[in-house]
């Protein structure tokens, strides 16, 4: 069986769904950041697959996915720095306990 575009898109959609589910259900701030990375990587699969099947002649999708990886790394860095700051102050990184203000 040949792997078609639909397979890649389905994989990306499932991965995106798992990531979103993780963001909504995880209680550990680091776990939430990891789930967000899953969502970004789902997008990367989409971009690279579209590049391969829709516009095989150029590299727009691949370049886009490199940008996404770089920006996601920057976002994760800031995220972990804030989590570290909260850990120093709260001694806790479970988001249920970080609720001085009502949601």
């Amino acid at each position: 069986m040949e792997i078609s575009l639909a397979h890649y898109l389905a994989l990306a959609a499932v991965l995106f769904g798992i990531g979103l589910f993780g963001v909504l259900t995880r209680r550990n701030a680091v776990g939430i950041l990891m789930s967000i990375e899953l969502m970004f990587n789902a997008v990367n699969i989409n971009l690279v697959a579209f590049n391969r099947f829709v516009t095989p002649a150029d590299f727009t999708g691949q370049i886009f996915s490199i940008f996404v990886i770089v920006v996601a790394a920057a976002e994760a860095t800031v995220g972990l720095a804030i989590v570290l700051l909260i850990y120093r102050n709260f001694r806790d990184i479970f988001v249920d306990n970080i609720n001085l203000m009502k949601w």
Partner: protein
Amino acid sequence: MPDLRPMLPELFLFAWAIVVLLFGISRKERSGDSLIYLTLVGLVITGILIPIAGYGNLFGGTFVVDKFAAFFQIVFLFAAFFAVASSHGLMKKLSADRGEFFALILLSTTGMMLLASTLELITLYVSLELTTIPLFVLAAYRKDQLSSSEAGLKYLILGAVSSAILLYGISLVYGLTGTTFLQPALSRLIEQSVPMLLASGNVNMALVMAIVMMVAGFGFKLALVPFHMWAPDVYEGAPTPITSFLSVASKGAGVVAIARVFYTTLPAFHDVHWGTFVAVLAAAAMIVGNITAVLQSNIKRMLAFSSIAHAGYVLVGFVALPQGSTVPPYGPASLLFYMMAYLFANMGAFACVIAFEKNFGSYQIKDYHGLSKHSPGLAIIMTLFLLSLAGIPPLAGFMAKYYVFLAGWQQFPWLVIIGLLTSVIALFYYANIIMQMYFSRGETSLTKARYDRPLLLTLILTAVGTVAVGIYPEPILRFATEAVKVFPF
């Protein structure tokens, strides 16, 4: 080597951010004053560079400076100017890291300026992240306050999720069209690429999904209902100058991005009826924002909900597309005008909150009682901004609401009626503060408010802006009408 002239303001602002950063590192012992003035000078020079750099496009149409971009760049520079000028009180409370604070504001402003003038989705995404990642750090800037860290974390998580959703939508658009450039001809590209893409013929479904995800992603930045959950907490927890910056500049970034994407590609997405979808979101934002604002006791939270409602009013202008030949103050132009009016009134209101906080150390609305007795100046100027936000003539807010509703009436009369009804509710909570300041009985032990010089400058400039735009709106309206001519309506 291409001629980088049109990009001059952004390049200068980026360089100036580095200068401010280095200056802050080299002079640790100094108070924030010299840094504030240095940053303000940089912003003013950038503003002067905008007309000098002129219009043009670069990098094969990726980066386009037109009147639309210039209009929003001016809005962003004003917002950054007011936020920086009102952060003197915050600087006194910080023990270190003052230079980084201003450098991050300048970097975020650079991102917004790039965002205003991009016509390509990769650049759009990177500029949007350059706008928001510094804002995550700035929201968490009071390292000694747990509420600030909490605000930063909440903003970061919801901001990152929203960019992931936006990206997914963008990737679908790329897949459907085979290009990341925003152009009116996208519809033809869809027709060309789709037969080999999806045999089932479910193109419209994929396009609808892409549009819903992109609107949701931008909706987070705009704090639209139902994507608004982060706004009240982040507004409350973040340092107040950053809250004021977020409420105008971050919202403006969302507006400029959504307008660029949807107006440029208008013919391609015409069958999908995104207008109705966005109109429903606007109605929800006006209703939920205004009703919840009535219930708040903290003034920063109240202004957060009021800003959610204002996002709804902005979108009334956004969906009011001209049909055939319409009278000049039509939808897209009224959207731009609304941003300008909202800028002055909201930044001014937050500057008053900062002045009050600095003198009396409180955010509670009930503590504003008797303000007119001990600090009449602050009470008068606060009243001015609140009346403008409520939309009372002859202030800027009234003209903005008038143009937006006038434009929206043709296509979405129900939306305008909701807007008018919720404006009445809005009057209730704005008037509540004015009542507290002027008509509450009981004694206060507070003394006359004192202001530092940059904050006074902010208060005066925003007050002048609010009155001037309200009394003499023609120049800005003409500029806005010219600006939206870049789109293929």
